[in-house]
């Protein structure tokens, strides 16, 4: 069964550094998402992306965050200047058009030191 894949599985970064989290969505999917889960808290929506533009974003997704689909297969989340509170598990998801569920990757654990 096709899967959403995320790399790396664990990223350790110094505060203030830029980080890029990578995702390969399921190949025929058209909608892409990032969520995060701070340890012990709920999974929170960050951003959705369709047709090469952001379709919705949450309050968390401020100017420090950006997303990109640089080619036909990758979907990236960039955090420009990381803060301690950005430490979390980041999940990528994708779905097909129509009434279809989102399929999630295994996540990238981001640790900011």
């Amino acid at each position, binding site marked *: 069964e096709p899967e959403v894949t995320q790399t790396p599985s664990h990223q350790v970064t110094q505060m203030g550094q830029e980080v890029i989290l990578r995702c390969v969505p399921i190949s025929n999917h058209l909608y892409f998402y990032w969520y995060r889960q701070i340890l012990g808290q709920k999974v929170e929506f960050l951003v959705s992306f369709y047709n090469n533009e952001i*379709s919705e974003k949450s309050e968390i997704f401020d100017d420090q965050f950006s997303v990109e689909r640089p080619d036909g297969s990758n979907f990236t989340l960039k955090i420009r200047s990381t803060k301690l509170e950005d430490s979390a598990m980041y999940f990528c998801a994708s779905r097909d058009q129509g009434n279809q569920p*989102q399929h999630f990757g295994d996540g990238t654990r981001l640790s900011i030191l």
Partner: protein
Amino acid sequence: AQSVTQPDIHITVSEGASLELRCNYSYGATPYLFWYVQSPGQGLQLLLKYFSGDTLVQGIKGFEAEFKRSQSSFNLRKPSVHWSDAAEYFCAVGINNAGNMLTFGGGTRLMVKP
């Protein structure tokens, strides 16, 4: 804005016993409803979904859930729990807007006693 409540943070059941995990949502219209399961160190795996139609939906691994509009609930059930079902379970609500973002509940951690 929509919200999801999972009242039980932890549940422990004996292997072979039945299971019901509660989920209540708040949304003005009929939402899309989902249950996901997360094993330690893993991502979120879809168990089942409700978009419309039959309010009792079947999912993978022997799970089912029932949408009750009058109670704004979407409880997850399994008649006989296996030790491998120990995990965290998340209920989620989606709405039909441009982004179709999901709003998650806080999760219920299921432990299974031998």
